[in-house]
């Protein structure tokens, strides 16, 4: 089935450790995004990429980094995890940008930082 694949599905991570959340899309969409979802706060944008080779900061970028080496992959890295990064992380893509075409989301990675 075409769409966004995220891995792992869930993870428990010790504080101070690093981790990379993987995201792959097979729709050849130009733009990709990382959101975190927290109860009562909705979805907040961490980083985005409008096209391969470019990235940008969203609302809550601190403590996270991304890369976009090709169209399909958009990994999110936590260099040194902290408990406040406990959240559900969603990767998304869109064909022509957030204001023109819909976002297609993956099923998320549930991360617990202890």
């Amino acid at each position: 089935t075409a769409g966004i694949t995220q891995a792992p599905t869930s993870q428990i991570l010790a504080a101070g450790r690093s981790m990379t959340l993987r995201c792959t899309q097979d729709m050849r969409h130009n733009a990709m995004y990382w959101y975190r979802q927290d109860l009562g706060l909705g979805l907040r944008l961490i980083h985005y990429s409008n096209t391969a080779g470019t990235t940008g900061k969203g609302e809550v970028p601190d403590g996270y980094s991304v890369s976009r080496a090709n169209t399909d992959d958009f990994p999110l890295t936590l260099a040194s995890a902290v408990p406040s990064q406990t959240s559900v992380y969603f990767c998304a893509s869109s064909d022509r940008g957030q204001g023109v075409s819909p976002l297609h989301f993956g099923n998320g990675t549930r991360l617990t930082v202890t």
Partner: protein
Amino acid sequence: QQQVKQSPQSLIVQKGGISIINCAYENTAFDYFPWYQQFPGKGPALLIAIRPDVSEKKEGRFTISFNKSAKQFSLHIMDSQPGDSATYFCALYFQTISNTGKLIFGQGTTLQVKP
């Protein structure tokens, strides 16, 4: 900073009833108002969207309406069904001062439709 305030946080409706979710915003110039639906364990998916030059849009049992003077847009689910039980997010898209596009989401509403 632009915000969207979504209410209620949770909603319980009987089967066949009308579910109403509201979103209020602060500023004026928006380009696009999408609503996303999220089932447990899944990512959100676009449900329906409206642009500010249209006051209402209906797709099946789902209707979104836009009240510019009240700075509010709403989702109505008619004849609510247990299968509609999900979390709903409103969002709005606007151009920032630096002329970049930005999409911000409401806080989410968890809807439970009782059989």
